[in-house]
């Protein structure tokens, strides 16, 4: 009884929250809120970014400690270097293919449960972070509050990593391990679709 009523209470709350929520009208908005919204949605609404960010967390979970936490520390710092390059207008070739490749490669790492040494994992993730950061920096809307945009896209990136880590923690169960490796396969295929222009 209690479990059912707790479920119905939670479901009711979720549905009413959804009904009460207003539409997200954030892209390119002015002011702090608009800038934050534009920055936050930039990684979240780009499926290529989402796939790669979640993959970083999932692979970290497969690699175990300390990689599970080191990768989300390395990624934003190196990503910011890429963003700085994008803002400064320093040319970087093949940004979009690089982002797509990050999903392909990281997805494969998860699919085959590759246990790379920490420095290899950090270098690989760092190299891909440059491409993701460059895209964020180069596409910064001129109308947005720059500080709010930076806070938004860094926070969204970090939260996507945490989502990946949270999902990845299920590998302690056999079914979870299969599910995570399956997610790696899907991420890799999605990356391939981005790379070939299918998606």
């Amino acid at each position: 009884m209690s479990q059912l009523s707790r479920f119905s209470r939670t479901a009711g709350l979720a549905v009413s929250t959804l009904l009460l929520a207003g539409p997200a009208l954030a892209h390119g908005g002015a002011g702090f809120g608009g800038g934050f919204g534009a920055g936050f949605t930039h990684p979240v609404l780009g499926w290529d970014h989402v796939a790669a960010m979640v993959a970083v967390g999932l692979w970290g979970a497969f690699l175990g400690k300390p990689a599970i936490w080191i990768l989300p520390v390395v990624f934003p710092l190196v990503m910011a270097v890429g963003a700085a390059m994008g803002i400064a207008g320093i040319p970087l070739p093949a940004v979009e293919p690089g982002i797509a490749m990050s999903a392909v490669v990281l997805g494969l790492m998860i699919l085959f449960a590759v246990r790379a040494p920490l420095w290899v994992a950090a270098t690989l993730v760092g190299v891909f972070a440059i491409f993701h950061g460059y895209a964020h920096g180069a596409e910064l809307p001129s109308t947005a509050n720059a500080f709010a945009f930076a806070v938004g896209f860094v926070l969204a990136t970090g939260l996507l990593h945490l989502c990946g880590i949270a999902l990845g923690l299920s590998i302690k169960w056999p079914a979870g391990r299969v599910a995570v490796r399956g997610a790696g396969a899907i991420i890799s295929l999605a990356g391939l679709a981005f790379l070939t222009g299918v998606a």
Partner: protein
Amino acid sequence: MTDRWHRWIWLLLAVPGTPAVAHDASSGLRGLFAGVGHSFSTPSQVLCLLALGLLAGGLVRSGWFPWLGGASAAAFLAGLAAGHAGLPVDAPLFAAAFLAAALAALLPGRLPSVAMGLLAAGGFLLGISALPDSGTLVGKAVTIAGSVLGAGLGLVCIAAVADAITARFAAPWVAMGLRVIAAWLGAIALVMLALTVAPAG
């Protein structure tokens, strides 16, 4: 003893802040509060204080902590003495924030001499940025006193909270969470540095 110290920090944090409307100097309590808020009035100052606080927080239990505090306080006063109002210190503040946050994220509690250098550099820049634009001599003095109080309390509170969190919660993910937050701060600071120095257009 440590528990009592932490209780005081939580109490200080609970004191409601005043809005940052600080660039003019005014005398009396209003000027003092304006000075306190001034240290948190721009993104570069906030990021720098947060990054320096997290960096110092990793060294609270080392013998270096009094030296770190002393160096940053002395440098803050030197910045007040050396600077003049309106100096463009945003870019150096973002750079200091990035370096401090990166060190706090990648090597927390290590390289204390480098941390001391960063705290001194950050303190110096915060000192320069704390100078009021205009006002009477007494008003400026009161506002500067507030700035010294605000920056000092801000730094100590952030460091103490970081230390209190890691001391109270032994789970390894708590300390790693602070490192992740430091990495996020560093990333934001570097992006802001690029935006500040990049040519317009």
